[in-house]
């Protein structure tokens, strides 16, 4: 029964992947990509990776989908010329051979993986008590491999600096996205007033349960970012100007708190990113709570793109 379900899932995944690659219209391809991401969520669930499934649904399918849809809509005029540049048959055949060889190699590697598989699950189980959290993935992300999480927050910040650096010089210090035009009767405006309170509760809740159950800062931050984007899309509030100090503080605050607590660990617990005995859980919650707004603002601003207009521009 499970195998039949998996087979159906595999078939659908491959079909949608092929569709996103061959569909002539980019918009149509993107509308294949989003369900592809959602179906992948089912694959993570089948592999018992609930936290990953949540992240995939939120970021992999959700945010990436929005990003691609918006871009596809704006890039419509470039499709026909691009199609004309399609590489010739020899290149495509060569590419197909190379890709097929790579796929075959990976397939062989997957089949040849050792059995029983090596695992760190027992090591995590043995040491999780000292971190005070119940969700093993949170323990890995915030304690055993906290460095990766810290660096990842820096990656996001750096990505945003990269996106902002693409602004035209005249727009520097301005705001991203189109100017807001609120239609008081629009249903979007209604939604943008009703949904955010619920969304904020949900986002904070996901962060809070993340200590012991599936969930965490990335998933929670995505929900918060989505709420903010909704409010901006409805024209209720404008995107912030990129030279505002509060924006920059909000962006850098989370990683800064993380580093500060890490250094505290170097002084008190004997190791950078170590936590003093008994204080592990509260400190982890503090770091996650500090990362949440930073990540939410970063994710939302990554989607809105570089600054495009200054106040007073038309």
């Amino acid at each position, binding site marked *: 029964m499970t*195998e039949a379900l*998996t087979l159906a899932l595999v078939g659908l995944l*491959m079909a949608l*992947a092929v569709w*996103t*690659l061959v569909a002539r219209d980019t918009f149509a391809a993107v509308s294949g*990509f989003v369900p*592809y991401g959602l179906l*992948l969520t089912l694959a*993570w669930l089948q*592999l*018992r*990776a609930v936290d*990953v499934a949540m*992240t995939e649904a939120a970021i*992999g399918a959700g945010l*990436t989908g929005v*990003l*691609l849809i918006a871009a596809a809509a704006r*890039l419509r005029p*470039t*499709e026909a010329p*691009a*199609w*004309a*540049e399609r590489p010739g048959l020899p290149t495509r055949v*060569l*590419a197909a051979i*190379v*890709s097929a060889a*790579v*796929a075959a190699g*990976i397939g062989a590697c*997957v*089949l040849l993986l050792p059995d029983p*598989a*090596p*695992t*760190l*699950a*027992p090591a995590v*189980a*043995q040491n999780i008590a000292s971190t005070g959290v119940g969700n*093993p*993935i949170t*323990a*890995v*992300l915030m304690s*055993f*491999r906290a460095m*990766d999480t810290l660096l990842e927050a820096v*990656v*996001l910040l750096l*990505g945003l600096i990269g*996106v902002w650096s*693409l602004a035209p010089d005249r727009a520097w210090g301005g705001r991203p996205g189109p100017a807001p035009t609120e239609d008081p009767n629009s249903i979007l405006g209604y939604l943008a007033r009703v949904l955010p309170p619920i969304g904020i509760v949900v986002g904070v809740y996901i962060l809070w349960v993340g200590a012991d159950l599936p969930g965490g800062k990335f998933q929670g931050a995505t929900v918060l970012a989505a709420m903010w984007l909704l409010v901006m899309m409805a024209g209720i509030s404008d995107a912030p100007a990129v030279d505002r100090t509060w924006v920059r503080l909000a962006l850098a605050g989370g990683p800064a708190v993380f580093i500060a607590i890490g250094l505290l660990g170097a002084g008190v617990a004997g190791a950078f990113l170590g936590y003093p005995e008994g204080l592990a859980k509260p400190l982890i919650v503090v770091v996650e709570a500090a990362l949440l707004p930073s990540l939410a603002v970063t*994710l939302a601003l990554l*989607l809105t*793109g*570089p600054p495009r207009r200054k106040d007073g521009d038309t």
Partner: protein
Amino acid sequence: MNTPTLLGLCAAVLVGLGLYGLIVSPHPLRKIMAFNVMGNGIFLVCAVIARRGAGAGMGGDPVPQALLITALVVAFAASALAVALVLRLFEETGSTSLSAQAAGPQPAAAEGEV
């Protein structure tokens, strides 16, 4: 054939498809989508590895699952930067072509030693 193996093979095919799209698609936005398809295939390999490492009362090895969350977020940031570049290129030049200059399309043969 059990579920992880089946999904592992599916992942291999997805990586192959993504790689093909990355090399062949002329439009950068399609390349970015192909990159995401390929990335998802790679993440699926990782999830399969995590599932195979189930033990100690956990449904999967939490270490690769945690790596996966990190990698997903990084991949999103990469996509966002790439899309922003494509849009800016379009604004600046009215085109998104990658081959206006002498250098040709992605060298397919170059991936040969993979």
